[in-house]
């Protein structure tokens, strides 16, 4: 990964979504992304094939407080 991936991300956003970088603050916001990428990298392997498809709504129902 490049030290500053912002130019590549801006190019990908333009290519995929047709959106231009609107201002300096937007460019600044992209500077957080290497940290986010590192967090995802640390979670690799926790999503296993058998988890899919998973239902969040089913988990909501299953995890209700049991009546005393």
């Amino acid at each position, binding site marked *: 990964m490049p030290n500053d991936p912002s130019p590549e991300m801006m190019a990908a*956003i333009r290519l995929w*979504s047709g959106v231009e970088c*609107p201002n300096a603050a937007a460019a600044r*916001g992209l500077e957080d992304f290497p940290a986010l990428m590192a967090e995802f990298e640390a979670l690799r392997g926790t999503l296993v094939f058998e988890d899919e498809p998973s239902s*969040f709504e089913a988990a909501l*129902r299953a995890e209700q407080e049991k009546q005393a």
Partner: protein
Amino acid sequence: MTDLAMLSVTEAADAFAKGEASAEAMVRASLARIDAHDGQVNSVIRLDREAALEAAAAQDKARAAGAKPGPLTGVPMMHKDMYYRAGRVSTCGSKIRRDFRPTKTATVLERLDAAGAIDMGTLNMAEFAQNPTGHNAHFGDCHNPWNLPYCTGGSSSGSGAGVAARFFAAALGSDTGGSIRLPASICGVTGIKGTQTRVSRSGVMPLSFSMDNVGPLTRTARDAARIMTVISGQDPLDATSAPEPVPDYEAALTGDLRGVGVAVPREWFFDGADEVVVKGFEAALDALKARGATVTWVSCPALRAIGTYVAVVSRVEAATIHANWMREHPGDYAIHLSGRLYGGYAIPGTHYLEALSRRGPLLRQFCREAFAGHHIVATPTLRMRVPTLAETSIDANADNWARHMAISSNTRPFNYLGIPTVSIPCGFDDRGLPIGLQLSARPFAEGRALQAADAFQRETDWHARVPAL
């Protein structure tokens, strides 16, 4: 006689029901307080003065004719300007929708109308509900009634500030990453987001279809319980709304926490927390214990993954919803908002789906870690002392990104988890700004969270304090 603007939701409804106060008198008291003080606070976008007085007069007339009042009859309310009422402009706090007139009315407004609440108009908010501070470049920033240069919290800024200032008894907010609980905490009021799917979102401006929630900001947990009982429940107009039956939440408010276990996660919520916030939180735990609760510190390793994934879901969904406007007139957004939306287009679809796919398993893991043997998870709502508007303005200084984003660190995880969470005031910091206590319960256990919040408010008087304006 008591200033009627000081009445809570339940006090106002009860006063009307007993014939001790007319609806018109209560609306006039609210209008007078708004006229006197909102010039400083800037919580109101649109005040429907005449319509509110007409509605109140009609209620008074109906009562005189023997009509039975509803649970909210005569109660003055205003709502975040993103709840659609057919034919009325709903700006969503934006320039883009400054003239938007929806053709349908939000289900939650219809339910409040049916319960007798009086809708006096619409409230300031973060543009498209997308900042945690209360900045608004189009309608002006909302100011904290406790100390005007400080943030109100967002995105339901006018809802928090207006309830705190006693402009009206309650307001709807919305919560995708903390937008009810943050202004509740920062303005010193009560706010609840229910279980994901608990309250209909039909006729409500979308931000993140996976994590948007509707809920009230009020002065007390009892008020929140009454409103949640009115607005919760399945809605045929919202296919995502849950069919689970809705109890009478007020019936659970016993003030007794004997047998109630409170868990406090060691991870995440105290990272870099200000000392004054931690001390206020620890004192709040003592108040819960005084009501009979047992408090246990627990380990929740799931929070690291939750903290990562939650940062992705709402960002991608918001970017998706706003894509056309971001292409066609990005300059109509405030700087901080277009900047925030822009990053959403950089996140790969596989990562977004990974975050969504892990949501159910992580909810189950969190429940095992936090709720085994416990009924409530308690955390500070905000890790830091309340910041000023100036020190969190990205529009003024892009260096403020990190401080701006850190505000919602403690609220966002509960949107990803989808569990009911209430914020109540639990003290003041060394600058006289409120500190918030966040109480979460298992899915669909809104009553449990409100029970703990109400018990806390019977033990303390933080919620009863009124800012000097």
